[in-house]
């Protein structure tokens, strides 16, 4: 009898954990594999505006769920990926895109890292060249002879 209670408990726990796993992933039926692919790529490049550092694919927020559903609805009505992206940016702005389009407002975002890299490389290159030249120049003739003497002494 006791064993049966444990079995029942285990069954209940399993039932609930299955329910939890179920909640995170909705089941969507797509007409074509292209639509399914478009859905997957869209939900992983749209930002969840509640959590901000997650895509709507990763987020369990209510809004993310609604937006996933919206993406699904639009794709299954035969709308293109671009139409979905336009729909989202019209409502939530460029911030909703993890890959914002290149324009004046986002130029710093796109070019900033490259500009920092180039500046850094230039600075490093400049610094390296200067220190090498500097090392050669700072030894005066007298010091050089002194150094030579020391080396010779050491050799004896």
């Amino acid at each position, binding site marked *: 009898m006791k064993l049966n209670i444990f079995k029942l408990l285990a069954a209940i726990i399993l039932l609930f954990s299955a329910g939890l796993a179920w909640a995170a992933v909705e089941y969507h039926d797509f007409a074509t594999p292209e639509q399914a692919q478009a859905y997957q790529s869209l939900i992983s490049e749209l930002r969840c*505006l509640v959590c*901000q550092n997650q895509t709507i694919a990763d987020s369990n927020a*209510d809004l993310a769920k*609604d937006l996933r559903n919206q993406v699904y609805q639009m794709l299954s009505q035969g709308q293109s990926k671009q139409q979905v992206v336009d729909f989202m940016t019209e*409502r*939530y*702005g460029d911030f909703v895109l993890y890959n914002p389009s290149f324009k004046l407002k986002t130029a710093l975002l796109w070019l900033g890292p490259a500009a920092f890299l180039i500046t850094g490389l230039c600075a490093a290159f400049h610094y390296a060249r200067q220190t090498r030249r500097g090392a050669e120049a700072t030894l005066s003739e007298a010091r050089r002879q002194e150094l030579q003497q020391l080396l010779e002494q050491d050799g004896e």
Partner: protein
Amino acid sequence: MAKYLIPLLIYIVVSIFLALGLDLKPQEIPSPLIDKPAPAFSLPALHRPEKTLTPSDFLGQVWLLNVWASWCVSCRAEHPILLQLAKQNAITLVGLNYKDESADALQWLQHHGDPYTVSLQDANGRIGIDYGVYGVPETFVIDKRGIIRYKLTGPVDNAILTDKILPLIQILQTEPA
């Protein structure tokens, strides 16, 4: 000279960026809907579900659209301010009851007081998406021609009301319909 000037310049530039960064509020996403027509809807009124309303019902007047829900905790923070605003009778205050059960919503209004001229039911949140709603409460100021002129994400407080919303309403009231 340049040897000292360059690090100083870099320091200044980085400091400016970091200082600006301190002041940014990533929760406040600028709405692309500002200066655009209020997105269309046709929604049942909360108290009279048989009656549906659209934005054109409010043409010719300046109105506030306040997104709220009975499950929304910070809605309670702004509620006294909305009640006070309603008492002054200065403006049409439309509630968008977002992703809520109408029974819960009605009970909430009964318990906390109802500042709204009318509340509309957006049960599945579809109209919320059209308005770019991502954090309840949100408040939109819409002019006489049905154009969104201001949006606030988060609760209305006294400072925002007196410094931003009320002066804007005053200006909009003088504009021709």
